[in-house]
């Protein structure tokens, strides 16, 4: 069993390194995208082998549902920019050196390999050396597992990861949610952006599949959220699943749909952080410290925060995918 496990890990490791290498070295952008999707799959298996099923679940939702679609749609946009550049406009002004054209040129006319090999190798060696020296001096420690286990009865949930994320170290999760919100505000501050155009579905199969998949995705998202209290799962994973379902709808919608109204959209996107902050301030006022809960209230408060966070994460992911500010707000 152990020898076979080691063999499995070695094959998996070789696959991950090989796929990452070919993905970075590929000059064909589509091939690089497919290799990256495969990389995400192998990475999820690696998280499983590292006994981190929570992260494997998140990697499954993000890797299969979101990054692949995001990269493919980016490729679509890049190609239409290229087509514009190539077809006509011979006297157009010189392209912006920081714009997408420069990125395309850099991608399509890479430096010859002999000029990049030595710098790349020395950079990798320096970073690798730093990592090794940093990890070499890790003191022998059993980690925080015994401490967490000893306090599970006051956490309000039965899954240690959720207990850490939403009770013992809730401010980490609070700041992570704030970062997700700030990322969206950053994307919106770049200005308005044309939505990817609606395309009529090629044949009846895609609409049929959507009718099956989207309800199942909603149920699965709620299930993963609920499972977080006693098993791997929780707000980030559930939000990623619901967000992927929304992205699927954006990608496959056969005709233009009205944009979400700006007010409720902003409310939903900020609900997670806002509610988390309110609960935290309440804990401060009630004498449990910032983001502390009374023991009897821990479970309902955690569920409340997780529901709001799931909604916000799902909406934020779809909004980041669509990019650009909501229509009808020109402040």
């Amino acid at each position, binding site marked *: 069993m152990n020898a076979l496990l080691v063999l499995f890990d070695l094959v998996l490791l070789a696959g991950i390194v090989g796929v990452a290498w070919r993905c970075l070295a590929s000059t064909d952008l589509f*091939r690089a995208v497919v290799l990256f*999707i*495969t990389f995400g799959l192998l990475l999820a298996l690696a998280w499983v082998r590292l006994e981190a099923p929570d992260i494997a679940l998140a990697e499954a939702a993000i890797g299969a549902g979101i990054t692949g679609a995001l990269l493919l749609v980016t490729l679509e946009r890049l*190609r239409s920019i290229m087509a514009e550049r190539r077809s006509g406009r011979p006297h157009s002004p010189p392209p912006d050196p920081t714009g997408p054209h420069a990125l395309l040129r850099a991608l399509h006319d890479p430096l010859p390999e002999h000029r990049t090999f030595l710098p790349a190798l020395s950079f990798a060696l320096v970073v690798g050396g730093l990592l090794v020296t940093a990890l070499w001096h890790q003191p022998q420690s059993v980690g925080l597992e015994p401490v967490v286990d000893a306090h599970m009865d006051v956490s309000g949930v039965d899954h240690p990861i959720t207990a850490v994320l939403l009770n013992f170290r809730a401010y980490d999760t609070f700041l992570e949610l704030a970062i997700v919100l700030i990322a969206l505000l950053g994307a919106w501050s770049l200005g308005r952006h044309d939505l990817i155009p609606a395309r009529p579905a090629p044949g009846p199969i895609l609409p049929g599949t959507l009718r099956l998949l989207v309800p199942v995705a909603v149920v*699965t998202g709620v299930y*993963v959220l609920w499972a977080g209290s006693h098993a791997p799962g929780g707000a980030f994973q559930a939000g990623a699943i619901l967000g992927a379902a929304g992205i*699927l709808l954006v990608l496959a919608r056969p005709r233009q749909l009205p944009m979400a109204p700006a007010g409720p959209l902003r409310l939903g996107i900020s609900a997670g952080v806002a509610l988390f902050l309110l609960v935290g301030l309440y804990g401060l006022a009630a004498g449990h410290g910032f983001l502390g809960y009374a023991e009897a209230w821990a479970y309902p408060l955690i569920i409340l925060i997780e529901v709001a966070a799931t909604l916000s994460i799902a909406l934020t992911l779809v909004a980041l995918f669509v990019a650009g500010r909501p229509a009808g707000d020109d402040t």
Partner: protein
Amino acid sequence: MSLFYLAAALFLLGTILLGLVRVLRGPGSGDRMLAAQLFGTTGVTILLLLSLALEASALVDVALVFALLAVVAAVAFVRQHGLPEPPDTPIHRQPPDTPGPERHHDDR
């Protein structure tokens, strides 16, 4: 039994690595997308086998999420129309064995 599940998972991991040859070689983007789709199914199967081999029932949920979202990349793929095709483009260009000006030659 768990030894058998692990051996089966290892075998499937091997088929993924073999199938990568199709991703690297192409030649069309459809071939690469198909390979990715097959990897997704194989990955779901590996996760199910590992859930029994490692006695971690949560892996079934990971497999469920992969199965649920397996179609997203393919939908994004069929959307992207790439360059507008010139009107005289035949449906099939020349086969991959005759090197044409449009083909890539970065299969090092």
